[in-house]
């Protein structure tokens, strides 16, 4: 066993190795999972913990939301099963929204890593299951009990044997049993791979204990975070932001207090939980709040408990960002995503070079139908708005934020659903004008040519409150949904009869800085690229663009 203190050379090499192990686990799960969300959109995470349950490494492509919730989940698991009570081959599980990730489909699976008879750490993986029973993810679910089976923290596998009772309960409560077990097995196998790789790593470097390494990783990360926080001027920075629930407006409020090398985010003043499935358990709030701080301060440093130590987060119980049981939480992201721009706006005046104006975010739509042969069709459609602009950086068109999903190709969509995509176009003048322009939104029109009635369940947002511009930048355009040209409520379930056309106009990102300061050539290039119209160039930027020459002049 090496007794020498860990120097910077060893620390870097061994730290990266732990991250590599979590990356390999994540890859193994993506390869073996069934859920489309896991395979196509990487809706999963892997986090490694030390024996005290402090996070020390995470897979690079983990979902940001899960990175923030996993350390809390680990704490809940250890409160229920203290480390002395764990045996080799045990695997813990939970999908309780308040202990896990904020909604029921995400399953958290953790395995203690043994060295001899001693626990040296834990490996946790989280994936979004194909189904967890109940009424599925629907905005109209009135309470948590509609949202499927909830597993408290329990031993999924005990000393290597899958708990038969749990297996039976799961099998009796979910729709697509094979896929669900396929994904659960993928998690269990992934943590097993992780435990093996940690063992190989310890063999290779001749170490019997991860603790000195874990301590060094956490100390180094904490130091880096504290240095960044200390550079922010002390003070309390407040902002409020209106968002839409279903039909009502609701205020989110945040006060960010920077004091020396610490930062505190408090969401007091935020409106109450709602009777629809958009409520946010506090674990999810905490996760996106720390994600925002991370993006602003130390984006290139791997996440772990060290980076979280100087951050404290609070929200009054019962507000929509700290909803209590049994509030329904299936669509918690449609509110939770706004935490990131809210925190950014609080710090816009003190970190003008780092904040990002509001983004248009994205639309997730669940699409179901029963085919003429009786087979069920269930799929997702996804469409992204424009990114918010930053100092020196225009927002990119059609990119999701803060979530991350991949495009649904029109050819894949047409083949799978029989519905035709009439067009997908960039929407000129939807990006918020600014010295740096917000990303443009896009428009898609889907015609129900499938010959059967199709149900679409939409979690739409930013239809009343568009993406805000920062530091003089203007807002982007709001999102719109219509069937056959008539506007429809953005959150809810709609029936598309054969021949109906659903139109989605995605929101643009907010601009940054005074649009009158945008370079004339940049405006002319926007016109050439179709991001800004000739009329928009004049009205938003005071720039006249000659369509023949493409050249612009400012009045």
């Amino acid at each position: 066993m090496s007794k020498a203190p860990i120097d910077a050379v060893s620390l870097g090499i061994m730290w990266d190795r732990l991250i590599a192990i979590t990356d390999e686990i994540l890859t193994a799960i993506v390869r073996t999972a069934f859920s489309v969300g896991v395979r196509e959109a990487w809706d999963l995470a892997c986090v490694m913990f030390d024996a005290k349950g402090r996070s020390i490494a995470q897979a690079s492509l983990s979902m940001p939301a899960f990175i923030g919730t996993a350390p809390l989940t680990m704490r809940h698991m250890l409160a229920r099963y203290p480390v002395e009570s764990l045996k080799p081959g045990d695997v813990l599980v939970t999908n309780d929204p308040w202990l896990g990730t904020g909604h029921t489909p995400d399953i958290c699976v953790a395995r203690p890593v043994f060295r001899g008879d001693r626990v040296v750490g834990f490996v946790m993986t989280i994936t979004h299951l194909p189904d967890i029973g109940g009424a599925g993810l629907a905005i109209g679910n009135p309470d948590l009990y509609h949202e499927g089976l909830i597993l408290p923290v329990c031993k999924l596998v005990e000393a290597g044997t899958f708990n038969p009772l749990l297996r039976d309960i799961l099998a009796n409560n979910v729709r697509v049993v094979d896929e669900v077990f396929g994904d659960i097995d993928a998690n269990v196998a992934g943590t097993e791979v992780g435990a093996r790789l940690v063992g190989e790593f310890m063999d290779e470097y001749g170490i019997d204990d991860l603790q000195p390494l874990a301590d060094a990783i956490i100390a180094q990360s904490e130091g880096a975070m504290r240095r960044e926080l200390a550079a922010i001027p002390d003070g309390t920075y407040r902002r409020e932001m209106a968002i839409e629930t279903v039909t009502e407006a609701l205020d989110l409020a945040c006060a960010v207090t920077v004091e020396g090398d610490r930062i505190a985010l408090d969401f007091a003043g935020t409106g109450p939980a709602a009777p629809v499935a958009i409520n946010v358990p506090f674990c999810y709030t905490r996760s996106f709040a720390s994600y925002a701080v991370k993006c602003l301060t130390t984006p290139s440093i791997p996440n772990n408990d060290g980076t979280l130590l100087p951050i404290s987060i609070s929200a009054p119980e019962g507000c929509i960002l700290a909803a209590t049981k049994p509030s329904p939480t299936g669509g918690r992201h449609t509110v939770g995503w706004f935490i990131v721009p809210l925190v950014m706006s609080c710090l816009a005046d003190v970190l003008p070079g780092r904040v990002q104006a509001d983004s248009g975010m994205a639309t997730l739509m669940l699409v179901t139908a029963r085919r003429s042969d009786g087979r069920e069709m269930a799929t997702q459609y996804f469409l992204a708005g424009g990114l918010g602009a930053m100092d020196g950086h225009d927002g990119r068109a059609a990119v999701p934020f803060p979530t991350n999903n991949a495009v649904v190709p029109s050819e894949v969509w047409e083949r799978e659903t029989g519905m035709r995509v009439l067009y997908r176009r960039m929407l000129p003048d939807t990006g918020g004008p600014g010295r740096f322009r917000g990303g443009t939104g896009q428009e898609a029109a889907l015609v129900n040519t499938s010959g059967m009635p199709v149900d679409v369940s939409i979690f739409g947002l930013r239809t009343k409150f568009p993406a805000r511009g920062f530091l003089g930048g203007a807002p982007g355009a709001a999102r719109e949904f219509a069937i056959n040209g008539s506007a429809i409520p953005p959150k809810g379930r709609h029936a598309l009869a054969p021949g109906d056309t659903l139109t989605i106009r995605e929101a643009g990102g907010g601009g940054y800085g005074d649009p009158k300061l945008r370079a004339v050539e940049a405006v002319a290039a926007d016109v050439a690229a179709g991001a800004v119209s000739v009329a928009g160039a004049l009205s938003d930027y005071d720039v006249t663009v000659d369509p023949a020459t493409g050249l612009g002049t400012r009045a």
Partner: protein
Amino acid sequence: MDWRVGIDIGGTFTDFAALDPRSGRLVVHKQLTTPHDPSAAVIAGLPVLMQKAGAEISDVGTIVHGTTLVTNALIERRGAKTAMICTEGFADVLDIAKERRYDMYDLRISYPEPLIERPMRIEVSERIGPSGEVVETLDHDQVRDRLQRLAQAREIEAIAVCLLNAYVDDTHERDVAAIVAEVLPDVSISRSADIFPFMREYERWTTTTMNAFTQPMLSRYLDRLETGLGELGFAGGLFIMTSSGGTVTVETARRYPVRLLESGPAAGVHFAARLGETSGIADLLAYDMGGTTAKGALVRDMTPLHRYEMEVARVHEFKLGSGLPAKIPVIDLIEIGAGGGSLAEIDARGVVKVGPRSAGADPGPACYGLGGSAPTLTDANLSLGYLSADFFLGGEMALDGGAATEAIGREIAAPLDVDALRAAWGIHETINEDVARAFRNHASERGFDYRRSTMVAFGGSGPIHALRVAHKLLVPRVVFPAGAGVASAIGMLISPLSFEVLRSDLVELEGLQPAAIDQGFANLVDEAADAFSGTDVRRTDLTVVRALDMRYRGQGYDIEVTMPANLAGAALIEALPRLFADAYEGVFSKSFPDRPIDIIAWKATVSGPRPTDSTDFAFDRGAADQARKGVRAAYFPDAGGFVETPVYDRLALKPGDSFAGPALVEERESTCVIGVGDRVEIDSHGNLIASIAAAEGTLAA
């Protein structure tokens, strides 16, 4: 007239290898690359090569050529003035791209610009449905009219024709292409269904734009090359290396330039795989590390793993998702931002980071003395004694050890408060970890158990790091092949003619008729065989490998299933469920016997005869007969630090020679670093085979 020559143009050197298949004699040559006109180095180097071989250029029957021209044109955006014609409503597909962010924390994320600017894209009214039905007929007059108007406003040299669902039925694409040919007869045309007819419009169309963008330039280059070779007296056949590890005719290369991406590394992997075959090694890791990048690949059952997507012109060179996707058949390469020139720095965490930024060849590592002052991997390897200051590139370039140590001390050791040697070791070992990590992840994604395989290491820097990387991967054996410095050129001259075609055609397995499956493959094979026209390969000499992409109905993940050569018709259909289940289990460790299965895509790879069955080449040896050149101090932490280490001359080692590490084996382009306790043996082919000291051993950190 039977010498075969492989010519690989790299960033710094153009490598040549000539083989006399009768004697197995292999002659190599290196010539500085001529970036302004890469054919110049080819024309200048070929006579030198053949003079070394003692033969005439007219004795050369075949030249196989690999070029980075297409890749470079895409990276540097030096291509034709290219327009695009696409389905009404979809001109923005190139901008909408994949939507996804490839980095979760980088708010200033940037993406590559499409190759075709917005005003050069024309939309036309037409629509083919997902089953090939005509939803809206093509408006011919509108195509003609819009094309003429664009041509009046802007110069057009090439056109990409990209219609929705053309992968199912390309009638409209053919019609549009015919109109283009009539309106603009001098413009080169690329059609999406012809380039590679995969479903997914963004990727297929982007691939088509790459083909169109590079086609005129590649065509001019091949003209110059053919003329120049002809003037030298070359009267044999010229073939071009592709990214899938096979070669094509010049005509096929002109039609599909996008298939030439990354052909050099593909040839290197092909060489490693064939070497494995000769030596009876079925599964191996090919590890090639040079000045700026490392490439890896996995070989399973003597066949390199392949895939159908690669990325070009990345905004962040080694970040997956930051480039333009090319959907073509490629050898499944791992790319790592690690090479001799990789810059070492201290990252935001306060630990050592090496690469992906590189000092390149100019100013190069600090020890080159060409003005570079930042420490690189090569500086670390020199400080650790792995490289010799006096025998770099065979002694042609003296290295400055003092400058290397000074740079490492200043930039790494002092800020981290460690000594310079420790910092140098950190730089070296960081790269070992990076390479091992890349292999692990790649293998894990593909369900490849590397722990029982063999590594084949080549390139200028690969042999320095190979054994330490292998140790981390629990890979028990490393082969350092003879000819490692020109592996890609050798890979080229032993590559057969080969062409792969694909057709996306969704078929439910339970309704598939014997005649339909046979006809489906026969059509593909006919199409692929067209690529052999003008060669002397007879139809009866062609080898066909058929494959189907299949999935369980409702799943989004296809599995490629290779058809047994001896099965057809009803027997093949009967075998398909079992074949699919086996392949599925290979990936997912389970299968679902009762689920319905869909066929998604049909593939055929048609290959000509292998030019040679052996990789047992006779290299021209150096004059030295004394294998042991001397000793020098090199750093081996497992031995406690610097130890006097024997240095061997690779060219003077003979089959049967063996010794134990620590040792250094030098050749002109590289040095094999043999660790403490590792054993080395020269096999009967001249390859250096190293066995790891103990597969479960402990390495000092």
